[in-house]
């Protein structure tokens, strides 16, 4: 029988390394997706995954006072992603990253593209949105990514950012409005 997240977290705090491995298995794809959406590349997303879990491990004693493991994880991942954004002025595109990967992982990446209806037009629109997202301030950008792309609730985001839910709503409203305007402007030009 699968253990619940609170049970795993408790075991992890008490020094059970297999519980830590299980937590990695359950959350690694979400953290990867978050890192990928924020930073836009496989290598950066991989960096976010590794560093997030390494930091979680080092802070295991703090975990006892953490209410929700997932939001604690998001906070660490987003903070690290923001650090990376600040450090790296330029960001490489996915194709560049893929070319630097070992062959078998490139193959997996190619196999992993899941959506067969990923048409040229859709790709173009997504690229436009990604560019528009890049123009937003970090908090608005992260709120839009977490809520509208990754599907986290407003209360989860508020918990992760340690701010009121009203702030999340406000950031989301501003981000969406800006994105709509940016996309409309690009479409017009």
């Amino acid at each position, binding site marked *: 029988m699968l253990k619940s997240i609170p049970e795993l977290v408790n075991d992890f705090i008490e020094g059970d390394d297999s519980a830590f*491995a299980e937590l990695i298995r359950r959350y690694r794809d979400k953290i990867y997706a978050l890192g990928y959406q924020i930073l836009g590349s496989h290598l950066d997303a*991989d960096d976010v995954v590794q560093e997030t879990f390494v930091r979680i491990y080092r802070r295991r004693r703090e975990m006892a006072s953490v209410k929700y493991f997932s939001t604690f994880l998001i906070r660490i991942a987003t903070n690290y992603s923001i650090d990376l954004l600040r450090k790296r002025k330029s960001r490489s595109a996915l194709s560049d990253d893929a070319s630097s990967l070992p062959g078998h992982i490139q193959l997996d*990446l190619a196999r992993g593209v899941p959506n067969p209806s990923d048409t040229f037009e859709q790709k173009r629109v997504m690229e436009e949105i990604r560019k528009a997202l890049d123009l937003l301030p970090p908090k608005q950008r992260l709120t839009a990514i977490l809520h509208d*792309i990754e599907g986290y609730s407003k209360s989860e985001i508020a918990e992760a950012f340690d701010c009121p839910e009203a702030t999340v709503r406000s950031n989301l409203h501003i981000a969406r409005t800006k994105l709509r305007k940016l996309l409309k402007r690009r479409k017009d030009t």
Partner: protein
Amino acid sequence: MTCSHFMALLDGFIDGEIETAISDEMQHHLRECNDCSNEYASALRLKKTLADMTVPDPGNEYWQETTDIIMARTVGADSSQPHNAETVSDKRAFVRSMLSLAASLLILFTAMLLGAGQDGQSILLNPPSAEVVHPSSINQDSVPMQQGVFAPTDDQTRLLRGTLLLASPGAPGLATAMARMGVGVNPTSDKK
């Protein structure tokens, strides 16, 4: 419902967080207002596009490798380096303390042997050839003491004992030997 009221509630509307009664009002407004209807369509399209922004799956092999790397950087590092360092440190501390104890015991034992081996004679304080003069006789008429016997006053004896006890690890041995020899002790003074 006004357009500004509609726009203020638009986010909640597309997220499905608006109460039914207000939601009905918004639906009604949508049917009547082209501008708000366009804004609503645009917001809905953006939300759908964002939700469709999938991330390519890096594959099982990547996940396995990444998990292994994380475990090596955390659990592996924890179980190898710090624990080993701790064990080595503990062993060194134990060896150091044992050497220290052995050295102390050796010094003490040697001192006791040396002290006991004098058999009633003190090489330092009472050489057979030396003629010791009582300190009190310096300013008085000199009264030579019995030759070869060091006979200090009670105060000097107490001072000597205290000094020896507070001295090096060999001091107790020396003190014992001296007491046994009766050197520096006035036999009559203790009985007073």
